[in-house]
């Protein structure tokens, strides 16, 4: 979760404003939402992912399912794919998850019934960057129709994203081999500070004619973590196909949670549908993204000034909330036990935990860990 420079959670000012509006509106009640969710939320959420000028939206071949966070969107998508993709109830369709990935990806697809969950090469520990050749090679050799979970931006946990050129190569292979793109978009806007930039990959795939799913989370970019606001965007060949897909997704939703929670969806819908509030929100998102970007550049410059062995440009080349520092498990143990700095055994740090007050301490500690422990 995001933290301010004081190390505190941050409720976005635009969210506070909109919540007050909702609280003051006596015409609102707590009635059930439709099964697929609040219509104004669904349309706006998908518009954010695909862009105002999206040809898919213009051609009326986009569907949306309001979901319980990004996780819920992934689960509904996974349940649908298991029932209807590549035949009926084909639990043998391989699911490819990046190595590494958010660990819950595996569980989501496993609990949805898929039996064959594999990894695709992604993180190159030696060069601390994307293993593009490994990734493309895995796609070349994946059984056709395999499903690939792609991180739309700010890859979790490595912070390493393909460049636009690399995405183009990925898309070309996927198209040729008939692989299904399932995007996980949990950080749109939060990664670079620009909604459009962070959605480039998803929009590129749409422009290349793919049918795809995109699981969106508004937990981070709206700071609405505990309200569970998410959306599954479905892009299909035409309106008729999308309609039938949504009707089947409705059945899945009905046995999972019946209909989604209304509070968070109302906040997002109200914000996105007002030009003024939308601008305010974009400003709040940029505030968060900029702070993270600042912490990255400050940490890197300190490590370079200290002469810490190794190269540290990956700290600023990586993007989003997380960074794969490259620290090995022993070095991590040193950080945790001796310096009381908590990070994952993988060397992943949450950049949001850095503040102007602790930057020096963290940089010095990393320096010690790297020089003392091999």
């Amino acid at each position, binding site marked *: 979760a995001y933290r301010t420079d004081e190390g505190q959670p941050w409720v976005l000012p635009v969210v506070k404003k909109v919540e007050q509006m909702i609280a003051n509106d006596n015409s609102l009640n707590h009635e059930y939402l439709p099964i697929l969710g609040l219509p104004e939320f669904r349309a706006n959420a998908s518009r954010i992912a695909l862009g105002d000028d999206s040809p898919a939206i213009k051609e009326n071949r986009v569907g949306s399912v309001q979901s319980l966070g990004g996780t819920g969107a992934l689960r509904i998508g996974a349940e649908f794919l298991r029932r209807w993709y590549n035949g009926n109830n084909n639990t043998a369709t391989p699911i490819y998850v990046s190595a590494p990935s958010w660990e819950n990806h595996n*569980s989501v697809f496993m609990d949805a019934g898929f039996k064959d969950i594999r990894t695709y090469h992604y993180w190159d520990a030696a060069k601390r960057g994307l293993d593009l050749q490994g990734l493309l090679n895995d796609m070349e050799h994946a059984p056709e129709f395999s499903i690939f979970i792609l991180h739309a931006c700010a890859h979790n946990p490595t912070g390493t994203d393909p460049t636009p050129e690399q995405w183009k190569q990925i898309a070309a292979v996927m198209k040729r081999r008939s692989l299904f793109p399932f995007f996980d978009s949990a950080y749109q806007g939060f990664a670079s500070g620009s909604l459009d930039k962070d959605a480039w990959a998803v929009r590129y795939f749409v422009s290349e004619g793919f049918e795809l799913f995109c699981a969106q989370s508004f937990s981070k970019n709206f700071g609405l973590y505990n*309200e569970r606001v998410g959306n599954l965007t479905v892009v299909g060949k035409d309106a008729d196909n999308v309609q039938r897909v949504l009707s089947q997704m409705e059945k899945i939703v009905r046995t999972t949670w*019946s209909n989604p929670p209304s509070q968070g969806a109302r906040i997002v819908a109200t914000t996105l549908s007002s030009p003024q509030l939308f601008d305010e929100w974009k400003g709040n998102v940029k505030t968060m993204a900029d702070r993270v970007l600042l912490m990255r550049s400050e940490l890197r410059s300190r490590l370079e000034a200290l002469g810490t062995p190794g190269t540290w440009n990956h700290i600023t080349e990586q993007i989003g909330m997380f960074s794969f520092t490259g620290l090995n498990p022993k070095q991590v143990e040193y950080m945790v036990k001796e310096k009381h700095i908590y990070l994952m055994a993988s060397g992943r740090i949450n950049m949001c935990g850095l503040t102007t007050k602790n930057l020096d301490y963290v940089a010095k500690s990393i320096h010690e860990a790297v020089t003392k422990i091999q």
Partner: protein
Amino acid sequence: SSWWSHVEMGPPDPILGVTEAYKRDTNSKKMNLGVGAYRDDNGKPYVLSCVRKAEAMIASKKMDKEYLPIGGLADFTRASAELALGENSEAFKSGRYVTVQGISGTGSLRIGANFLQRFFKASRDVYLPKPSWGNHTPIFRDAGMQLQAYRYYDPKTCSLDFSGAMDDISKIPEKSIILLHACAHNPTGVDPRQEQWKELAAMVKKRNLLVYFDMAYQGFASGDINRDAWAVRYFIEQGINIVLSQSFAKNMGLYGERAGAFTVICSDADEAKRVESQLKILIRPMYSNPPVNGARIASLILNTPDLRKEWLTEVKGMADRIISMRTQLVSNLKKEGSSHNWQHITDQIGMFCFTGLKPEQVERLIKEFSVYMTKDGRISVAGVTSGNVGYLAHAIHQVTK
């Protein structure tokens, strides 16, 4: 071509589909007796006063939006358990239970169904009363269980077929799962009397069945939360370690906020901890952690003496209005000159009433009178007001005389 060419159009949801058809109707006299959402005597949704107060309190506290734990808001789950089990419950006081927050009743039922599929290896069979809430079957089926039935509703008398139920239950294979509606049976409104519950408890004990209670209407049925939870508490006292799904959609009017809970009564606190850990493993890949808003509101109400008192009064008010509408419907039918026996309307309890109307009669009510209900003749009494009860009686008389 599309990946989805072979995907069939799903049938419209029968219950929620009624509301959709109602919305399209332009008849000024139209009545929506479909979905089970409470309406006040003006036919309007009712936001409880205690809910508004709780919301104001929450707004003033300026809380953050950090993720809840996977199992939900602790103050909420503890209060939900206490509400269901009773503050003097030995199971509650000893801590030999686990309660996790669920996405209202449906989500709580689904967590339980998934849990049983994974950990209750003795049987795949879930026995539902005939009839049951339409969504029970697909929930358990999607969780990987098989559905069976026991006799419950007697269409000849529009009341409980108790001997049929006891007969069927006596033959259920040991260690099967039996689902019981704690109160205000949906869709029939027919509940067992206390002496009948005692016999049911003895029978399920004898058959060594796993009991799954669905309690979606505590307080809403009789107006008394303790009375409505009597069966749940009795079973536990008889040493039956039940599992339980609760909803706060109706009794707190929190429908769209999705406040609910799933409880497992265990042998001891240690077992409860182990069960809890497994429930979390099931929840995480579904939606990670639950939504806070409804749980916060419910928790504040249950845990703040003044608000709790006000809530008990309001829930009784809702129950009383429904009971009064039942009474008025029967008297209006008599006034219309109906010669049928409509006693079941006042004998039944809760939001729903199984009128006994046949599908052809229901269709006429919809087409000729714009009175909307589900095909099984179920009406949501909550949709009846003193302003339209006369019209409803008239319409029913027209299609049944």
